[in-house]
């Protein structure tokens, strides 16, 4: 997979390395900015309040 991407990047080794770095950073940015904030409330790690569970009490 990564080999395939590497072979399809343009330029010599240095250009490819640079493009790879930029691509990785872009992916990390998308994860931190959009994907993780979306996923976090779906995971049970950050609930700190006591409540009556949506009125079941």
């Amino acid at each position: 997979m990564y080999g395939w991407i590497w072979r399809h990047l343009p330029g010599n080794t240095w250009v490819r390395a640079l493009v790879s770095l930029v691509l990785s950073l872009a992916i990390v940015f998308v994860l931190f900015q959009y994907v993780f904030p979306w996923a976090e409330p779906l995971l049970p790690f950050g609930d700190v309040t006591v409540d009556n569970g949506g009125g079941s009490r």
Partner: protein
Amino acid sequence: MAATTEQQKQAGHPGEPRPGRPRRRGRIATAAGVVGELLITAGVVLALFVAYSLWWTNVLADREAGRRGAEVRDRWAGGPGPLDTGKGIGFLHVPAMEESEILVTKGTSAKALNAGVAGYYTDPVKAAMPWKEKGNFSLAAHRDGHGAKFHNIHKVRNGDPVVFETRDTWYVYKVFASLPETSKYNVEVLADVPKGSGKKEPGRYLTLTTCTPIFTSDYRYIVWAELERTEKVDAERTPPAELR
């Protein structure tokens, strides 16, 4: 192995050494390689998520809380305008938690608490403000991530001071009970006379709630304190003896 050898014999290309096998093996190797790379990618993404949860959300929340706290202090310093509970009603100081001042704002929704603040309850039990004659001033904040303001709640012992600072008053509370583990549905801990704290008479109480164990939300950790005295804020905002 045996089948392959037979196929080679049947194919009968003596010039090409083993034509079938390398290609088939190559396909399997490629597939295994892709699966392996996907697994490595998944591992890296999960590691990034941990970094996001435990580090990056703290960076964002502390920045936001610092900005809002400065706004509140600015307004106290002479800025006019009514009390905006959304922006903050005061600061909580808990020396035992080794955390600097914690801004207190209205509400305990995820959105409110993610700003790196402690929120006072509006639901399911409405918190009584500290300046009220009787009642329970109940607060919630994150244990991990998003500022992690109550991270060290387990270091709070009975007798430790908890100080709430408003524009003109220091409210000095003393911790008298805690509940290291309770159900997340136990809303009685927020009652005016909190159930489980050992108190029977109405008084001026303060309740801190957060999640436990650390890094999860299976249970809730509760700390109760009772108002000991109040002090007027002087011109220099000299903190009460407990914070010095």
